[in-house]
């Protein structure tokens, strides 16, 4: 009775961010997935507990290590939540710097995503090298601004740590002006490829209703056709001043999730152009905002931003002391995995890695 035989496989690591820290227990009927359970926690260091034992500012460098591809948006989400909690105003110039760095972060995240998902499909190396060539240019900008390529630790309550170095804006403008040409090149390289289309189109479609109920956020939610971008709905920071469109998918399949990142990168370029043109002079941090000795008044706040991977939120409770009473991170990578089993059921084994890649997770954030 070989047709009743199923096989259990411990699948992974395959995706570049999952080496040794993420696997899936998959039950296969032939090549078809009948059950899938993601297993993670190998990188768990209880970030929340560490933050609750340190001062408010001391949690800032730890946020770099959440989604280590995008440290600057993590910094911003935490700074935003503390600013809400303590009622701190942000310096005008810092608001522009935050938008510029956050959109650069989004660009390099989405570019890295393009390389990673090609790797997941078996195109090892080549596409990733093209992607990382561009990403490295952005990381160079981060390094000259913050001193670190990835562990930036740049934002402060009420602003940023230091002003832009001389010539930084010109270098950024040059990169931004050249970026659409790279996206055109990448798109021409990929979208005409028959194998890529066959591996992505129609694979694991996700309806809008399921995506909302499953808590999907960011590009995964919008790929299912939901018009929801926190930059638009909340208008946090100064996003309400910029003109940009929110791209949406239709079928919610892997191809939509893939293409959405390309379209979002193009919109990020538009925001960057406006922000670079409009940046005013002035201080980069609110001089009234306390940093080291901060004691927010007792209360709680939930602050969230549209991170490159989805809704990144911080839920903070203060008891009036110098440490957070409760420090909770809403990790988009973890919550976007909720529907992984649902997406993978009934697909072939080879598609599982592509589906995982199309969600775009980073295990530093899943495990915390």
């Amino acid at each position: 009775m070989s047709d009743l035989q199923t096989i259990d496989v411990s699948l992974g690591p395959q995706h570049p961010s999952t080496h040794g820290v993420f696997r899936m227990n998959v039950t296969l009927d032939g090549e078809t997935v009948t059950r899938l359970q993601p297993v993670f926690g190998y990188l768990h260091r209880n970030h929340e507990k560490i933050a609750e034992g340190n001062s408010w500012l001391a949690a800032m460098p730890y946020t770099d290590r959440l989604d280590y591809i995008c440290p600057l948006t993590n910094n911003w989400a935490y700074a935003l939540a503390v600013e809400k909690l303590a009622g701190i105003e942000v310096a005008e110039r810092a608001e522009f710097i935050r938008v510029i760095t956050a959109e650069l972060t989004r660009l390099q995240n989405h570019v890295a995503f393009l390389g990673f998902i090609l790797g997941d499909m078996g195109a090892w190396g080549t596409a990733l090298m093209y992607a990382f060539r561009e990403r490295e240019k952005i990381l160079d900008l981060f390094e000259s601004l913050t001193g670190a390529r990835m562990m930036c630790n740049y934002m402060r309550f009420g602003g940023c740590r230091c002003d832009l170095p001389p010539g930084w804006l010109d270098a950024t403008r040059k990169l931004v002006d050249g970026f659409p040409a790279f996206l055109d090149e990448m798109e021409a390289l990929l979208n005409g490829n028959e194998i890529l289309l066959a591996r992505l189109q129609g694979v694991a479609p996700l309806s809008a209703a399921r995506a909302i109920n499953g808590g999907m956020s960011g590009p995964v939610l919008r790929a299912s056709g939901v018009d929801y971008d926190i930059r638009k709905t909340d208008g946090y920071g100064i996003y309400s001043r910029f003109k940009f469109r929110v791209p949406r998918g239709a079928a919610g399949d892997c191809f939509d999730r893939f293409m959405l990142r390309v379209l979002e990168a193009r919109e990020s370029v538009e925001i960057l152009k406006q922000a670079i043109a409009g940046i005013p002079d002035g201080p980069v941090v609110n001089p009234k905002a306390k940093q080291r000795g901060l004691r927010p008044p007792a209360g709680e706040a939930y602050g969230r931003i549209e991170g490159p991977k989805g809704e990144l939120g911080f839920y903070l409770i203060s008891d009036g002391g110098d440490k957070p009473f409760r420090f909770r991170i809403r990790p988009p990578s973890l919550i976007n995995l909720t529907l992984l089993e649902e997406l993978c059921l009934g697909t072939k084994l080879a598609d599982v890695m592509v589906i995982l890649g199309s969600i775009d997770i980073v295990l530093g954030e899943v495990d915390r």
Partner: protein
Amino acid sequence: MTGVLEAIRAAMPLAGVELVNNPSPCGQHSLRVERKDVLAVAEFLRDRLGYDFCSNVSGVDWPPQKLKETTTKKELVDGVEKEVKTTSERDVPGFLEVVYHLYSISKKSGALTLRVRTGDRGADVAVPSLTPVWKSADFQEREAFDLFGIRFDGHPDLRRILMWDEFADFPMRKDYVPPDDFEYEPTPHDEILAKVKARTEAAP
């Protein structure tokens, strides 16, 4: 927030819902719902008021504390009216709390904050799971179970998610004491080591 509270009270007059004031400048007030009503309230919020997106599920540990209360009374002392201060200590029992942050994607509104309390921090730590209402609560409720020890009745797959299955304690509780040595595990080899130690110490 008050509009939501009124809508709940109009539809479910018997439900135990109350407004919790947040003194922070951001003014994000929340609704505390009693355990027995939380599932019905959640379904009402999702189906009638459009809160279709459960963004964040967070456990909070409120340890027992002693509240010092100072009361001032006017009393006659030796025929003169004086203010006398008396300080009394009151024990406030601890409890665990689950906080849900809800948004409406269809109406682009939010956040609505729901809070549910457990009875205490020991035996009575069960609350109804909201995973049947919002699937997004699935992993997050497992995390609250894993790190805080809150039991979610009706959760489809309540297992540890970040810590390993054999782990016994709940690390996010305020009174958690980490072990001195994470790596140590008792092995059969321990007996042999003890024998060797006894023999070497007995020798001159």
